[in-house]
């Protein structure tokens, strides 16, 4: 709930809330295949060393 008299703190809180939302939106996505495949390849090379 927004406070009845929104002040600087309330504004800041809403900003931080939105920052977290946009961050988490990407952070919660599954890792793309392209990247998992790259890591698999890198790890494979590592074990062969």
């Amino acid at each position, binding site marked *: 709930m*927004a406070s*009845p*008299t*929104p*002040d*600087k703190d*309330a*504004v*800041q809180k*809403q*900003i*931080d809330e*939105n*920052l*977290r*939302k*946009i*961050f*988490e*939106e*990407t*952070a*919660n*996505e599954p*890792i*793309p295949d*392209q*990247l998992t495949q*790259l*890591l698999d390849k*890198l*790890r494979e090379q*590592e074990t062969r060393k």
Partner: protein
Amino acid sequence: MSHPDPREELIALLPSLRAFAMSLTRQPAAADDLVQDTVLKAWSNFDKFQTGTNLRAWLFTILRNTYYSDRRKKVREVEDGDGVLTAQLSEKPAHDGRLALRDFRVAFDQLTDEQREALILVGASGFSYEEAAETCGCAVGTIKSRINRGRARLAELMHLSENEAMEMTDPATMAVISAGRTATA
């Protein structure tokens, strides 16, 4: 093994690396390319990583250095004219008194890269000011001032300046508030 393998830790940090990349590039394809380059650089430099130090800050530093050096290389073909993005903002904040996420994103995109990264590191990824300063290679005070300026700019773009803050409240709530005020006056 006393320390966890940084190669394994890196995998756990991929989601936040992607989110950080996205906040810098604002383009999913470019963000994934950036993460891929970061992973490759990290992998070939793991011997330089000091075990037991902050892997997250180390990786984020590689990512941002890669981003800024790519950016320098590129001729800025499209300088967004001030008006273009501003025009996409809706006139007023959402009626329910919350910032509409879409509008927030448009406003966020208008900040400088330095403001965006400082806000994302401290405001969303849970970095301390010190960690963010280390990651960005600048003073703690610089991080703080980028955050303050970024927040002020966002508030301004979202019509959230303190004078206009009452606009965040919907008419019904407004009526209740002003009725309350009259009653106590």
